[in-house]
């Protein structure tokens, strides 16, 4: 189909030219976007951090509080683990004097227990008596 006069007139209308400065701007944006796309492969820790922050974003204070509690628990745990060998060292070999002292204390304790046991051995006897006799006793 051959264009008529009117179509030819329209075709001759020159279109507006693209601004020259767009070329550099758009190509720069393209380069930046390709670099952005490659970066996650290299900088995976930052991606991990950003993903974590996205996941924790709804309640950051709650998550921070929970993290602080866990850190505290770990600190306490580690500090206690550090002391345990020291305690073991201290408890290791008691000196002969200490042994003698301990034995003496044991003996004393045994004596004390023995005497109290002797007292406890004679509980007050309660002999059931008829009521009338009890009244007499009270009267006297």
């Amino acid at each position, binding site marked *: 189909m051959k264009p008529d006069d*009117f179509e030819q007139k*329209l*075709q001759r209308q*020159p*279109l507006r030219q693209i601004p020259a400065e*767009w*070329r550099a701007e758009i190509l720069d944006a*393209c380069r930046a*976007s*390709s670099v952005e796309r490659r970066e996650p492969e290299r900088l995976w820790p930052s991606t991990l951090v950003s993903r974590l922050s996205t996941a924790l974003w709804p309640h950051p204070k709650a998550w921070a509080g929970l993290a602080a509690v866990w850190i505290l628990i770990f600190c306490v745990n580690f500090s206690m683990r550090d002391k345990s060998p020291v305690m073991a060292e201290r408890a290791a070999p008691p000196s002969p004097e200490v042994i003698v002292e301990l034995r003496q204390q044991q003996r004393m304790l045994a004596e004390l227990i023995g005497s109290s046991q002797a007292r406890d051995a004679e509980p007050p006897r309660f002999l059931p008596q008829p009521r009338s006799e009890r009244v007499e006793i009270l009267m006297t």
Partner: protein
Amino acid sequence: MRGTELERLYDGHAQSLYAFLLNFTRDEADTRDLLQEIFVKLAREPELLAGVRDERAFLIRLAHNAAIDLMRRRGARDRTKENFAAETVSPFAATADPDENIFRDELAAALAELPEEQRAVVHLKLWEELTFEEIAAALDISPNTAASRYRYGLDKLRDRLRPLHEEMK
């Protein structure tokens, strides 16, 4: 995609895409955003062009889809604005001849009144000089649909511009 390949694509097709998009958006900033969106997409996904026989048709399809998306995003308020060509950017270059300027302004206004699907076909036929088969491939329609849309669009332009055209003869 390599920088040189992008530069080749830009130098070969950016002007056509710019004119096509500007005829849709009638807004320089929107046109720039869409153009950048298209090239950034190509830079990020170079595999998009793998196996493409007609680069121009493929890029026009990308531009058309991007423009349609923009129209949807704009909403009713801006779509009304689009009908007032006087308030928007003309897709035609300015000239020193006042008569020609009047004709170009009228043509820009008449194009803006066409439905988007007719405007796309008219633009590609008149200023890209694509065949109906190429237009059909670019816009994902049948060649018959492309031809009928062109005929309807051209008739509307003719009706609107005939007095001015006759006067200028």
